[in-house]
């Protein structure tokens, strides 16, 4: 059964981390508690160990990728058997064998190579043990050697200062030099720097606090279950998700509480007569917020379709600046990553942001009885300079009521 390998929960004030080294490759056997991958953050390198005996099934975030707290970075299959770790043993072994290694002599007894792989290994003076083997049962394929040679080339180009790189010794494809208390210095990407600046600005120049509530998702889930097929069929394959309904509920609530839809411009408060709702999308490079213009006038199908398009564009890095500026409200969903509760940070110059979270079944008291309901915590972070506590709470309660009784969105009550 496949489970997800997740980045660990980061310590407070750590926004994200970088995947430093995968110690195990897909198809490789791991024992319980064995180290699988290192995630590097500003403060510390966190280790992720195998939850069980099994096999790393898939790597979703590669070395050098930025990951958020708890983000899925790979897939793990417990109980499976995979290839043994011969081919990715770290440096200490290879450096001791360097002096005496006769490539073909050492290799042929241990590792099975396809004819072309064998040829390439010999022509390039490689030690097959250093090449990551992904073939059936640990066989080395030509593809493996080709990939190894390419990564060797890029490591040699990008890290000339590595002490251990010597002419004849094969260099494994790790990005961080091994050794005691190693460090890796990587300049922030511009996007990362800009995100950092705005987050700091939001928390320093606003009186931000968060109010919470919880919503029973059962009515919405029933609605979706009942109509999802018809929806998909009628709307040319667009799937009915929860986001569109939350957007609609938010748009309706924003109409009733204009302060939540407003922004601060210098000493003025600007009340917007339209609802441009931004939907936060997580990409490998960071969080981006494309805007749904006039969300209150969009149909559910249009909202779903547009969000899907934004997601794809964000993944391809093709979102334009226009698409990301000027929103009046933002919705962020940490639930897809497993967040149960959080305090989202405002997206200036907006004055409020709604945080959606994971839907989790909980025992709830309904009419004096205990009922198991799928619940979601909602968080509304808001700028207290602009919005009073009462308005913020009631806004959030309105969203809750609309979601728990979707007919109210239609009836605008």
């Amino acid at each position: 059964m496949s489970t997800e390998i997740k980045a660990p929960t980061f310590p407070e004030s750590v926004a994200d981390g970088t995947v430093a080294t995968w110690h195990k490759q897909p198809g490789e056997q791991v024992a319980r508690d064995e180290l699988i991958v290192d995630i590097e953050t500003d403060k510390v390198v966190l280790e992720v160990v195998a939850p069980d005996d099994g096999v790393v099934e898939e790597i979703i975030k590669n070395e050098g990728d930025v990951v958020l707290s708890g983000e899925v970075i790979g897939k793990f299959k417990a109980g499976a058997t995979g290839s043994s770790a011969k081919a990715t043993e770290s440096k200490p072994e290879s450096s001791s064998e360097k002096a005496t290694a006769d490539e073909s002599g050492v290799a042929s007894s241990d590792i099975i190579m396809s004819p072309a792989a064998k040829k390439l290994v010999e022509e390039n003076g490689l030690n097959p043990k250093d090449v990551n083997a992904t073939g059936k049962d640990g066989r080395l394929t030509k593809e493996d050697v080709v990939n190894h040679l390419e990564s060797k080339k890029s490591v040699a180009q990008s890290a000339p200062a590595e002490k251990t790189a010597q002419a004849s010794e094969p260099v494994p494809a790790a990005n961080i030099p091994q050794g005691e208390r190693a460090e890796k210095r990587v300049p922030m990407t511009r996007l990362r720097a800009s995100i950092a600046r705005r987050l700091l600005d939001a928390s320093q120049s606003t009186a931000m606090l968060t109010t919470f509530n919880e919503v029973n998702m059962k009515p919405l889930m029933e609605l979706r279950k009942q109509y999802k097929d018809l929806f998909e069929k009628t709307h040319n394959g667009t799937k009915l998700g929860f986001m569109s309904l939350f957007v609609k509920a938010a748009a309706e609530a924003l109409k009733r509480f204009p302060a939540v839809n407003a922004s601060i411009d210098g000493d003025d408060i600007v009340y917007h007569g339209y609802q441009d709702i931004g939907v936060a999308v997580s990409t490998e490079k960071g969080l981006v917020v494309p805007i749904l213009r006039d969300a209150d006038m969009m149909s559910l199908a249009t909202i779903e379709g547009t969000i899907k398009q934004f997601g794809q564009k964000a993944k391809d890095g093709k979102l334009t600046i226009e698409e990301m500026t000027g929103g009046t409200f933002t919705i962020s969903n940490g639930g897809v990553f497993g967040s149960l509760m959080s305090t989202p940070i405002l997206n200036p110059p907006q004055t409020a942001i709604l945080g959606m979270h994971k839907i989790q079944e909980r025992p709830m008291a309904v009419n004096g009885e205990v009922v198991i309901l799928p619940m979601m915590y909602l968080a509304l972070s808001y700028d207290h300079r602009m919005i009073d506590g009462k308005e913020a709470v009631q806004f959030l309660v309105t969203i809750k009521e609309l979601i728990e009784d979707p007919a109210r969105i239609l009836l605008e009550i």
Partner: protein
Amino acid sequence: MSNKYDVIVIGAGPGGYVAAIRCAQLGLKTACVEKWTSDAGKQVLGGTCLNVGCIPSKALLESSHKFEEAKHELDQHGIQVENPAIDVAKMMERKDTIVKNLTGGIASLFKANGVTSIQGTGRLLAGKQVEVTDTKGDTTVYEADNVILATGSKPVEIPPAPITEGYIVDSTGALEFDEVPKRLGVIGAGVIGLELGSVWARLGSEVTVIEAQDTFLSLVDQQIAKEALKQFKKQGLDIKLKAMVTGTDIKRGLINVSYKDSKGAQELKVDKLIVGVGRSPVTDGLLAPDSGVNLDERGFIFVDEHCQTDVPGIYAVGDVVRGPMLAHKGMEEGVMAAERIAGQKTQVNYECVPGVIYTHPEIAWVGQSEEQLKADGVDYNVGICPFAANGRAMAANNTAGMVKVLADSKTDRVLGVHIIGQNASELITQAVIAMEFGSSAEDLGLTMFAHPTLSETFHEAALAVGGHAIHIANKKKRK
């Protein structure tokens, strides 16, 4: 006899009987329910494949091919044959004997492995119970720890050409004509339509194939499909593309087929009409509303990549679930389901499922076509070798066709192999094995192939990927 089993399999076609045998081999108390009953009231095992599909069609293809050779090709070898004639009844008798041998064979395998055969129509109830209705109408409820659904598929009927005994038939009827139809219409230029059309064309029918799509064999690599179309046209099959049948009318022993093509409304008169437009999964009456098993949006039983349905312990395999409707896919899924029930972690590699069309020349493929690679934006190299360059093919007077190998341009990993030619169905397995082990084109080039064999064409095509085939002039790399 207790009514409780470790596994109950519903359906004794290739998916079902293989699953049942594997379960029994793994020590599970297994029963297999099959509803197919002969006219004499005896249970018939083997499903569509053995009885009215793969096996009988191959038997007729073989017989008709021999007839074709006798009529048109033996004289090239210096063999004089006077006016060969075809005894359709005898041909059918041979086919029936083969089918009987194989279905009897399954019954013996069941006995040898300890699988209990249950005759009747199976229905899945809640709680993994299986209700079986026998030929008399009596029902018995069996309990199972696990269930494997393998009820297969049935031919699709279309309203403009309803099945009419003696005139408009599906694939089952097409395997049972008692004489060679003078004029034969075939609706659908898919695998089934082409194979059955070929059989009767070789035996002397004037065959017209009406296909609604505008591309021929759209799921096959198009270079191969074009060559196939050329070959079939040469054999006398009149293949009309972008033609949609709008109605049929039976008058005075003839079928008037009305169809619409790019030029407008057309009419065709035939003696028999085969409807081969596709097959749909068999689920009618199979699932009680509270069984817990669900169908997907296309009517197949919904399963994950290990053929598990929404209910743990209930699996579904073969034509009744997603994926290519091929007997070998059903068989391997049956094995996977059986082994999973026994706690093993078996998987089916859906990337390496071979497809075959048993016409002459045969067509076979595994992996991605050029069109699929282009659509995915994958950079690839091509290597092609025609059978015309192969000595063995020349010796057999069968030089039509080619082998095409597609490999990743960076890693040289073989991504797809496409063959049209004699014995393609056998040759393709070499490619399947190679791809299962992540072979590169160079690996195949470094492997020794026996000479003289048709397989060498595969070897040469692999060498051609790298531009150094020996027995053909190497083309400049094209993109």
